[in-house]
């Protein structure tokens, strides 16, 4: 499990308007690029000081590539990060206020407490 890395992906995509669009339009390409080029970047350090060990597990890569927020929830990705990025990417596809958020919740409706652990 690399919940931290899942969160790092969501965090770094969400805060960059260009990456939000890139991930919306090309999830597989964005995830592959990010894992190869960005996953090991220490965020407040220069490129030469990157980490050397961070990689997604298959299920994590698949959840991100599939824009599968239900799978991400199950893997323990931080729900706030996923929701915020999903609103940025997909709210525009819905016409009614909160329709996207309610649809997002409905797809998680089968889940009961306790929810998956989000500790990193």
């Amino acid at each position, binding site marked *: 499990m690399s919940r931290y890395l899942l969160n790092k992906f969501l965090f770094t995509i969400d*805060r960059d308007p260009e990456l939000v669009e890139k991930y919306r339009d090309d999830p597989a390409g964005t995830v592959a690029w990010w894992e190869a080029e960005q996953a090991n970047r220490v965020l407040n350090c220069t490129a030469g000081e990157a980490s050397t060990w961070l990689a997604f597990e298959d299920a994590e890569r698949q959840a991100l590539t599939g824009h599968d927020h239900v799978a991400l929830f199950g893997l323990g990705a931080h729900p706030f990060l996923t929701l915020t990025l999903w609103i*940025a990417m997909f709210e525009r596809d819905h016409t009614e206020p909160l329709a996207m958020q309610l649809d*997002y*919740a409905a797809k998680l409706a089968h*889940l009961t407490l306790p929810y998956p652990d989000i500790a990193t």
Partner: protein
Amino acid sequence: MANLVAILATTHHPFYYKTSQLPPDQAPPFAAEWVRKVAAYRETLTRANPDVLVMVGSDHFHQLWLDNMPQFLIGKAPFYDANWYNEEREFGLPRLLLKGHEELSAYLLREGIDRGFDLAFSNELRVDHSITCPIFTVRPQNDLPIVPIYTNIFAPPLPRPERFVKLGQTIRELIDAWPSDLRVAVIGTGHLSLELGGPRQFGPHGPDPEFDAQAVEWIANGDIDGCLANVTLDSLHAPGNATHGFMDFMLMMGIAGYRKADYADNLDLFHTMEAYFTWYPNGVDSL
């Protein structure tokens, strides 16, 4: 000594700013009552005539991140830029520049550390909507210097509720002992029951109205012991997966002490219950 003139504990609802700006024909049905309640709440701060604001909130993965996550952090800077791209994008929040009060920041850091809280600090902090929402609601002229205090209610492992209360009690002691003639107000924001990114989000009410009713009672009555007897890190999962933000209310209860709020109001909205509390440590008659 400094004069602690008001303590405000409130929810921070990032959609308030945008909702309050809408013309009446475009505003949702609940907007007018919401704006009215916020205006009444604003008056509870205005009448206390503060010189400086100590502001308690929680960064939402904006500047504070999992590679270096403090539990409690005090900003110490002459200025704080505020609000982030994703808050502009999602909530329509404008960017702000707030003044800082470095002397009070330095004092709280030094004395807080000496009293057993190993406080982190930041000399360049861009604050987010947990700090700016109450600026928009209770001090929209944004004319007072602030000391931002961030807590971790977001990224486990979290400090326990008792620790939030204890930090609040410590902040109270420190402000009361601050050698200054300034009038200080403390404004802290948190949540009642809240679900974000889970199956119970964005319902017609908060995810757990029973918890909300109980929480409002605890806060309004200054029932710190009753609250602590019923709230644990584990128990806060049940009312909603983002309900750990309630611990910021508990910190504020620690600041206010064992006394009833002088002002208490709430508003049941979709998604969450809004709540507004004010204490006047010197009594209402002192104002």
